[in-house]
């Protein structure tokens, strides 16, 4: 017994401790230090700072622009999560239907992930401000004539479009895997029973990929809440701060305004919000999987 226990401890030390140790050094220790910094008035440059307790958190919650930005972030996250998952599922369905050049198409849809967020945001910025307006001029389609990035609502739409464009390709890969994993006998049996395509999807395929849905929704939620790169380079929060999402807001507070402690406190608040929402989402979808 004790021999076994010793062996187990050795196994734990060999296999679990090294990755967790590195992870703790890289993530947990800075996180704890970061929590400490939220209790200070450090401006990011100075060598000296004072402990000011929870003042930064009080400032965050009494700041109406923070609450504004939080609401915008919720709207953005909602549309991104829903649309990227729906599109991801549709793409995966189409790409498991056995059409020609399936793998080339999969590459096309996944390609958006091969380029970093900041640069991608710039490219889309040029597309919205140079290319789409050009198409608008030529075709006389009203909605394309002015840049989407200059209207508060359309700029948010543009931000959602670009995020969905990137994320759905990523989620598609996971959904393709989910669909390929459905035993073909199940599908055959259903087909012999005369189920139509919609019923097949609704009654058989969808329930069988629920665990993929859990993972994908979880990933979409965390990615959307932390969306920063695209926000910075596509709209930089504009026009007139209408698309300033939380992660960008944190960055602005910490770096543009020299209020590091407050920016850090905002980031901690974001972390807590994402954690709570993710826990709720995972436990709800896990329950659905059991059914």
């Amino acid at each position, binding site marked *: 017994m004790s021999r076994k226990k010793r062996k187990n401890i050795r196994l734990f030390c060999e296999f679990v401790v090294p990755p967790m140790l590195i992870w703790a050094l890289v993530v947990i220790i800075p996180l704890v230090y970061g929590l400490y910094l939220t209790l200070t008035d450090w401006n990011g440059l100075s060598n000296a700072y004072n402990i000011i307790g929870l003042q930064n958190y009080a400032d965050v919650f009494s700041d109406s622009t923070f609450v504004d930005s939080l609401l915008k972030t919720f709207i953005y996250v909602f549309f991104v999560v829903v649309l990227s998952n729906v599109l991801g599922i549709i793409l995966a369905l189409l790409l498991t239907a056995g059409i020609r050049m399936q793998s080339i198409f999969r590459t096309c849809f996944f390609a958006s992930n091969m380029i970093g967020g900041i640069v991608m945001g710039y490219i889309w910025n040029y597309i919205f*401000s140079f290319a789409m307006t050009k198409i608008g001029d030529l075709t006389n389609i009203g909605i394309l004539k002015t840049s989407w990035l200059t209207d508060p609502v359309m700029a948010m739409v543009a931000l959602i479009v670009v995020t969905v464009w990137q994320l759905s390709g990523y989620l598609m890969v996971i959904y393709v895997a989910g669909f390929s994993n459905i035993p073909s006998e199940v599908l055959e049996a259903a087909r012999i029973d005369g189920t139509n395509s919609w019923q097949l999807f609704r009654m058989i395929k969808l329930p069988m990929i629920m665990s993929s849905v859990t993972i994908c929704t979880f990933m979409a939620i965390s990615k959307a809440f932390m969306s920063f790169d695209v926000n910075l380079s596509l709209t930089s929060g504009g026009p007139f701060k209408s698309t300033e999402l939380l992660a960008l807001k944190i960055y602005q507070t910490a770096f543009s305004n020299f209020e590091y402690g407050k920016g850090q406190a905002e980031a901690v608040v974001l972390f807590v919000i994402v954690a709570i929402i993710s826990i709720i989402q995972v436990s709800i979808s896990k329950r659905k999987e059991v059914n």
Partner: protein
Amino acid sequence: MKRQNLTKALSLIMAAAMTLSLAACGSKDSSDGSGDGSGASGQTTISLYTTIPGKDSQFEALCDEFMEANPDIKVDYIAYDSSEKQKWMTLYSSGQAPTVSIMDAVDIIQNSENLLPLDSSELTFMNQIDQSYVDVFKGADGQIYGIPNSVQAMGILYNKTTIEEATGETFDPSTIKTRDDLIALCDKIQAGGVAPLMLTGVDWSLGSHFLSQVFTGIRGGAEEQEAFINSVKAGEVDLKSDEAWNNVMDTFDVFAKYNYNSSDPLVGNTDIDGQSMTSGKAAMWFMGDWGWSYLESTADPNDEYGIMPVPLTNNADDAINQQLGVFPAKAYCIDASQTTEEQQAAAKKFVEFLCLGNQQAMADLLAVALPFADADVNYTSPVIASTQSYIQSGNTYSTYAFSLLLPSDFWSENGAVMQQYLVGQMDRDAAADAIQAYWQAQE
């Protein structure tokens, strides 16, 4: 036995990989260029951080030239990437504070506790710079913390050729003495089938540059500007009924009315706007002499370009309408908090080199005028000649408040207000209230 050996070997490999990766991280090998500043060969290592993007190779060439002349000093060049302040803060936080930085005035003053006071009796070339430019970098303690690297002017960039072709008359900018003069000119240009004016609807141009005119020369000198801002902060002034505010905004309305970009005012791309100007679709542009860099690549060499003041009032006797707002945009500063005395001495030498060593190369790099009275350089930009003529005739107004008193988030916060005003989402009184609220929150 054999199996155990295999396990052992594998765990050994893993352990080795672990130690290696950790050791590799722990070792400061050749890839680490900085350090405490004293290299093995007695070299002093300093660093240069620039917030002037897109000029890396030119700056590196200047660093090389300096190192060749000073073999005992090594300069590490740190390029700007996406956010100038984030990078600066990161460098300070990591104990890698750049020895020499090129920063905006507000940032230099904000960080003055970490910077080295610069003394013109030691760095005598500072005397070549107009005192009012140097004073912009004066900290609360009366010491100077920055040496301006350039002098720029904001105003109306114009394409003289386009204007003359559209109006059929010769154009002399000095005839535009009032807002009504500007309107009359616009009407004539418009009749010629050209968009008279252009605004780039971005927050920095509207919120920082255009709006700053409410707080600068129109108030008088530095003291008047400071006094006015203090009274706004204290809530003693009602901006809505302030004469200068209404004057500046009346002029802004003229720009908005005759704006080439009026169908989509916030599209805000300097490259597209530059091409609109060089192709003769727009005649005048609210920008500054640095705007030549947006025109240069497509400008017709036969076209004549220049810069003129923005007529802010409707009274021909107001000197401000004939004066250009000239300001030192960025400055060199030297860190004192994370550097040794040798590094600071080397940094002073290096700053002197950047100011005097190869002025032609620096002028080409910056594409705006150098602030040194003795500078003998040829500017490729035709607009600079225009700026210089205003400077030489003394027709400039103080931009003290613009350089120093506007907080570092002024442009983004109030740029948003000006954008809303431009697209009609906010009326003038609401804009005034929003800007006033911003100031009062600064107290």
